[in-house]
């Protein structure tokens, strides 16, 4: 009943002309960046952050969400047509999607990918509507002590997401926390690490940092590791080519449903996300298939399942962000930054305090998925034409947009210089095995952590033992400790097993 009421609030918010327009812009832009090489959803969302300052919080998140799940579909277009995943989550689609294209079934692969994403998106929305209120009921037990413990758990989970070593990821978390303290201290008013630069008194901007770490560093990576342009092997010429026939539907229905459910639950887990969901779905489909040897040779199930799973996971990833305030990946980290700039603190109280945002974003996904399919089925040729845009033109243009994006954050050229500096640092870190994702998420969560820890210690009269007296906080900290120790314990067990005969 609560969910129904929430969905109605959300529908009325999402169906407003402004929100529909920005949902459309987000989905179209997301599909385009999914197709374009080099510019992922994280960089795009970072670039657009300054534009969202003037928007309503719900409108901003609706547009940013559209970019994220739009990019998931856009990434599959390149996977199918040129065997280059536009997005990490579309890697698995390369296997059977590209094979289908080579066999002259590119249209069917693109079509089933669009329909699978659509169905998964709808299933995911209903799943979110069921899970949301459950988390809302827990919100009354969360004070500064619990929130600070939750942030610590979130930071440890961020380390688990990282593709690089845990030690380096933890170092990036520490650097992110340190950078989050730049600026005026909110209690004493004293300046910290400002080096006499006025712009730094308000702290480093999340938009500027994200533009540098993801946008500019990506251009430098593209410059250093230039790959040759791939040729498009086939492109659908008419609508009928994109529509799967009865046999295709019969083969794909099961994988779509299984992929949607699997993707939804994996998306809820911080660290798992769309990439793991698509791999898990592929493995599952191969396991349940009557003839697994068809996989890798153009099996439609190998496209339908993973595509459904990655879209479902991309959407359900909003649940940990909106209801717990924990971003499960870099994109959600930037979205969290966008919300905080707007003065909205995502977390357990968001569902009850700002239902228009929580339910509005969920309901907008219904419209977004509809727009995605309306946009992608007839306009797939337009998006395919983006693949012909050479990187030699694209990279300088992205750099120009990064410059304008960084400038427009505070209308300051100092921010442009900071973004460029962050870009060079981000490139250096990436080349030497340091993932900037934990850095950005720790930077965004650092402010919340400092504020809540100081409040918690004030409540506990300066004694950290308050964390031991609160069962939820203690549980969260123990979980964080266990997560941190788990890889070490596993390593020790493996070493012992390899030594023992």
């Amino acid at each position, binding site marked *: 009943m609560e969910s129904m009421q929430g969905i109605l609030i959300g529908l009325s918010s999402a169906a407003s002309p402004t929100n529909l327009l920005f949902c459309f812009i987000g989905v179209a832009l997301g599909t385009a960046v999914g197709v374009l090489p080099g510019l992922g959803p994280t960089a795009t969302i970072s670039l657009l952050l300054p534009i969202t300052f003037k928007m309503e919080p719900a409108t901003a998140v609706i547009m940013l969400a559209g970019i994220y799940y739009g990019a998931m579909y856009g990434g599959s277009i390149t996977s199918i047509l040129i065997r280059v995943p536009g997005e990490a989550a579309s890697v698995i689609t390369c296997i059977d999607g590209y094979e289908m294209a080579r066999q002259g079934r590119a249209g069917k692969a693109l079509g089933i990918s669009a329909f699978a994403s659509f169905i998964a998106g709808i299933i995911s929305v209903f799943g979110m509507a069921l899970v949301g209120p459950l988390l809302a009921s827990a919100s009354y037990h969360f004070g500064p002590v619990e929130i600070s413990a939750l942030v610590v758990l979130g930071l440890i989970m961020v380390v688990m997401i990282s593709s690089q070593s845990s*030690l380096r990821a933890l170092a990036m978390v520490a650097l992110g926390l340190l950078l989050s303290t730049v600026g005026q201290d909110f209690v004493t008013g004293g300046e910290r690490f400002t080096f006499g630069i006025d712009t730094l008194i308000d702290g480093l901007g999340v938009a500027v940092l994200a533009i540098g770490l993801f946008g500019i560093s990506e251009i*430098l990576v593209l410059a250093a*590791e230039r790959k040759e342009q791939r040729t498009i092997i086939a492109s659908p010429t008419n609508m009928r080519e994109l529509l799967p026939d009865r046999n295709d539907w019969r083969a794909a229905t099961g994988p779509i449903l299984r992929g949607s459910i699997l993707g939804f639950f994996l998306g809820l887990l911080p660290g798992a996300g769309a990439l793991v969901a698509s791999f898990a779905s592929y493995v599952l489909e191969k396991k349940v298939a009557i003839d697994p040897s068809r996989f890798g040779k153009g099996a439609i199930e190998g496209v339908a399942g993973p595509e459904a799973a990655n879209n479902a996971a991309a959407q359900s990833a909003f649940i940990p962000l909106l209801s717990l305030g924990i971003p499960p990946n870099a994109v959600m980290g930037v979205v969290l930054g966008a919300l905080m700039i707007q003065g909205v603190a995502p977390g357990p109280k968001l569902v009850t305090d700002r239902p228009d945002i929580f339910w509005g974003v969920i309901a907008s996904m219904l419209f977004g998925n509809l727009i995605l399919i309306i946009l992608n089925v007839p306009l797939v040729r337009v998006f395919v034409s983006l693949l012909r845009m050479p990187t030699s*033109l694209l990279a300088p243009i992205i750099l120009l947009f990064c410059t304008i994006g960084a400038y427009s954050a505070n209308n300051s050229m100092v921010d*442009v210089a900071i973004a460029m500096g962050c870009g060079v640092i981000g490139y250096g*870190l990436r080349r*030497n*095995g340091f993932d900037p994702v934990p850095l950005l998420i720790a930077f965004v969560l650092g402010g919340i952590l400092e504020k809540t820890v100081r409040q918690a210690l004030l409540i506990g009269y300066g004694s950290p033992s308050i964390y031991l007296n609160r069962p939820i906080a203690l549980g969260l900290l123990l979980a964080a400790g266990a997560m941190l120790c788990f890889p070490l314990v596993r390593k020790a067990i493996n070493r012992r097993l390899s030594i023992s005969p």
Partner: protein
Amino acid sequence: MAEQVSGRAHQVTSLILCVIGFAGALASWRMGLWNSGSPDAGLLPFVASLLLTGLAGSAIFLSPPETVSVDFNAWRRLTGYAVAMLLFCIGPLLVGCLTGFAAALFIAMSVSENLSLRTALLWSMCMSVGSVLIFRLLLGVPLPDPFIDRLLGL
């Protein structure tokens, strides 16, 4: 072609992070860690700096990560982009955004991307004019440009 980055570059990065952490710890110690029974301004940066020092220091001894080698052409592209980035930072302040952006784009396109001078000039001018039209005149982003300001009587 993936190969292991030279151990020294990876170790130098870790060492720089370690030094940043150490300097951060010293600076935050001076800010004060504890005051009147509650945390002071320096507590979180001190803890973060200590963590950074320890973790980055330990990362020096990790095996180098796998990465793609940077050849001569890549260095040329990177150098071109470095100059373009510098121009993006100072160009708009010196000669205005229209000329500054065009110059930066021209360097990126001709030096880094090896486009012909004519193509690079044409694209850089088009993109510069287009971006100023869209962002400054349409969206109201006050991109600095003394020439346009004079033209508009501002």
